[in-house]
């Protein structure tokens, strides 16, 4: 079973497709969660996902916008897509019948 951050990373990489690399994935996660995403968490999680066979990473060509440094490009594998799908199904399933917006409004503070 994936962790929450692993799922976020896989989903962001899948959404970005060919343009999935460190900075872009980080931007996607920060936009989605509205929280800062540390580069340490991103890269260590990326390694973990690669070890599990959920993503494949490789070094791209250097670009001038990055000070002549290469990108670490990411592609979600079939196994990764399967794991993300299973996580999504589990979250959707367990959330069935629960509306957090309504519940939060209903619970007196």
């Amino acid at each position, binding site marked *: 079973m994936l962790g929450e951050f692993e799922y976020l990373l896989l989903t962001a990489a899948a959404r970005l497709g060919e343009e999935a690399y*460190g900075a872009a994935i*980080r931007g996607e996660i920060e936009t989605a969660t509205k929280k800062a995403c*540390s*580069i340490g968490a991103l890269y*260590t999680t990326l390694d973990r996902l690669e070890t599990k066979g959920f993503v494949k990473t490789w*070094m791209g060509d250097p670009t001038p*916008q*990055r000070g002549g*440094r290469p990108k670490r490009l990411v592609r979600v594998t079939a196994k990764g897509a399967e794991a993300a799908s299973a996580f999504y199904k589990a979250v959707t399933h367990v959330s069935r019948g629960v509306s957090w917006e309504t519940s939060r409004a209903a619970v007196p503070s």
Partner: protein
Amino acid sequence: MNRLVDFVSRGLDSAERDAVLGDLAESGESGARELAGVLGLVVRRQAELWKDWRPWVLLMLLILPLGLLLSVASQITARGSATYSWLYLNNWDWSLLQYREFWYELRDSLVVLSVRWVSLACWSWTAGFVLGSVSRRLLAANGVLICLTLLLCGLFAAPEYLAYVFPDPGPPDASDPVGALMFYGYVFPLIVRIILVAAPCIWAMRQGSGMGKLPPLVRAVILTTAIVALVAMVMRQPGIGWVLKTYRYPEFWQSWEIRALQNVVYWPAAYLIGGLIVRRWRSIHV
């Protein structure tokens, strides 16, 4: 700040370093956030390595013993040098310059001090070189650990404890009254420890980490020399020498074998000069 980020990022593998610095350049983050991000990743990477058993063996068999021995050597050198420093710096009198005897005395003192300082720096360099050559990936963590060991041994006065473990350490220390002074008792040993131990050790760790590029035979010769130099240090400083009570047998130190062994301590000078010559030769001929 950029320089600091660049320095910290050296704790990462070169490919990852490029990708991370490129990401940070692209996202245009502030210097402090950039530094925190890179530092966080370096710490995570180093922490991951410690899940294995090998770094722990390295810590127990090399870092801690070498840190302790260098602490002892540094404390002895600091104590010995403190007397000379106090004599010349705290009691300086310009009129002394007119006496020929003063110049003789000064020359002898400088020779004694230079030998002690160079020996200590060479031992520290050798220890750092061996540590650096053992594990390239643990370079940053081992650098921090050896500095911590040196600091803690200094704070908790490891040499004094060692004197209880190995009693009868030879003639009484003549520099005790000087050591009772605040500066010579605490600040001076710390300066010696930083300049003559920590700095050469860290420098050599970087040199040692590049050993993989050398041919196997050269690597074997260099490592053997480094290990012999460490054995010489262990024999000279409290340690095996104390256990064997070699200080009771002055003739032991007079044998040519032991004297030759003591000279191996200065091998870092030969290594650095040799490296310079090779680089110069390559830049001309290649």
